[in-house]
């Protein structure tokens, strides 16, 4: 009987995950699109060396503003003659940076609270009440109030752009950690009862090492899935804040800001709000597809089928 078993070379489990991920066509396309957008925003400015904030002066201003698509300005120019192609890259840098940093902070906070609540029974009640409380907060109003609150103080401390960046990223993290915390807590509660954790504890592993060594690696997959989805949420939240005029200052381009600025010119120059809108939508769509593919790939029940 045993002869029939074919022996495979031992293999890292991430290769299995990658194999499964590759079969999800949407996720693959999503990843390609996402990488292209990231390249466009971060490598693009090295090739397309036009200052996104440069306003032409004198008669040039009259000649260069509100231009349509052309070779000199692939996405045209805005009402102040600034090159929209360069602004799109700059705006994308900010939106993606907010998305990724916001996601990291939110995941760190959520995982920390989830692990502590799941592992230490004494903290569980308090932390879960806290989570319920945060889930009951009306988030968008709170975000708007927070941005109104700390705008000036942080601008004075770190400068307008860094100050707003810190504020938005913190606000996003503070209002979006709850789902991750709940998922992680549930998983930790189940893992805690496993034999290998008991074995590790019986040889005297202190709680901190037990968590870092044995529990965290096992909650990695749900955390990774919610991390990808969190990027999408963070980008949309930032864009929504900027759209409502509560985000970054007006002359500082982000995708949401560019959509909001373009809406006023929708009738005459529709491309000005449509292009950044399409970029936001493409990014969010690709990230959501990646998340879908990851969820399937990381689920061992589906893998290998």
């Amino acid at each position: 009987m045993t002869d029939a078993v074919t022996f495979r070379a031992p293999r890292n489990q991430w290769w299995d995950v990658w194999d499964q991920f590759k079969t999800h066509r949407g996720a693959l396309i999503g990843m390609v699109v996402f990488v292209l957008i990231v390249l466009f925003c971060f490598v693009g400015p090295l090739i397309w060396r036009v200052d996104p904030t440069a306003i032409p002066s004198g008669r040039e201003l009259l000649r260069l503003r509100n231009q349509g698509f052309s070779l000199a300005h692939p996405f045209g120019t805005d009402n102040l003659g600034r090159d929209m192609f360069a602004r799109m890259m700059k705006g994308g840098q900010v939106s993606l940076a907010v998305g990724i940093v916001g996601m990291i902070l939110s995941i760190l906070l959520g995982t920390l609270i989830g692990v502590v609540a799941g592992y230490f029974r004494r903290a569980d009640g308090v932390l879960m009440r806290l989570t319920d409380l945060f889930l009951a907060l009306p988030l968008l109003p709170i975000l708007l109030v927070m941005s109104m609150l700390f705008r000036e103080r942080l601008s004075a401390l770190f400068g307008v752009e860094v100050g707003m960046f810190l504020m938005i990223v913190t606000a996003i993290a503070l209002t979006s950690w709850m789902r991750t915390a709940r998922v992680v807590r549930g998983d930790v509660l189940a893992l805690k009862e496993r034999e290998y954790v008991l074995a590790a504890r019986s040889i005297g592993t202190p709680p901190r090492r037990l968590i870092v060594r044995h529990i965290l690696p096992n909650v990695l997959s749900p955390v990774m899935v919610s991390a990808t989805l969190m990027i999408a949420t963070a980008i949309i939240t930032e864009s929504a804040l900027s759209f409502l005029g509560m985000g970054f200052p007006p002359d500082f381009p982000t995708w949401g800001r560019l959509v909001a600025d373009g809406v006023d010119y929708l009738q005459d120059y529709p491309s000005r709000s449509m292009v950044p809108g399409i970029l936001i939508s493409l990014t969010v769509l690709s990230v959501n597809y990646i998340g879908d593919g990851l969820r399937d790939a990381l689920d061992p029940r589906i893998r290998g089928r």
Partner: protein
Amino acid sequence: MFTFTMRRLLLAIPTLLFIALVIFLLLELSPGDPMSDMPLTIPPEVRQQMRLALGLGEAWYIRFYKWLYLFSVVEPSHVLANMTGYDWLRVEGQRILSFQTRSPVADIIAQRLPQTLWVVGLSYLFGILVAVPIGIYSAYRQYSWFDQAGTFVSMVGFSLPTFFTGPLLILICSICVGWFPIISDTTLVVDSWANFLKQLRQMAMPVFVLTLYNAAQITRFMRASMLDNLTQDYVRTARAKGMTERIVVLVHVLRNSLIPVVTVIALGIPTIFTGAIITEQVFRVNGLGALLIGAIYGSDIPMVLTLSVVFAILIVLFNLIADILYAVLDPRIRYD
């Protein structure tokens, strides 16, 4: 069940008190001054008296207590009196006044509520009506072209932010084709068929945008829940008994897979009131979201505080309703 409901209702009170306190303190810290748009020529002592007249002179805990009293006793009495027509219900005295308009907050909310309910409520209803059949058929014919198209459309609808789909729709339907007005006329009174048609036309776009978003989310849940149930043993048993396919899917499977979907729908109802802030802004619908944004810009503290706490109450309430529904619909779940 009854004790569970009672316990949760009692627990909701400290939660809501805490949320109200947090929002109050946040607003307390805010740099906006309701006196900032008064002329600078007003002498300081008059300015001080005006601040006192706005109720800003006292310590924060006294003001919080007073607001709490007005919010939980006086305002509900007026709302009740207006709804039932019994004037004796009114508690006389001070009411929560908006800094911007100097009229009671509850009255302004009552004025704006119908706009939001019509646009956002209708879109939620349409969303459910569209999503449930699509979800059922998608799951029943998994991996068919209908399923592929349905999942793709729901992924797109779920990913596109409303501040993009809104302008896109305006561009297509209002600017290029000219079917619908760009900005809704909020003073329109529906008293004739012509006006009713006008109302329908101006509601069409915001309702469509929100329907797309709501339907996308509910379809995903419906499909996943149907898929979970279609592989269960009881489905095979029902088929083995000789039930027709229609009865198996629409009676046996659907009833079970609606349980999580109903709770998701209940959880989403508070977003009818809060989630449409951006859509209302795009289409200039004069509803609660627009009211909140205007109040935040104008540092209208009583209005922001009252609206946010009303939203929080809705969220807590519908969380509770979702939990109760879950237990009522699924006999395996017992909280006692």
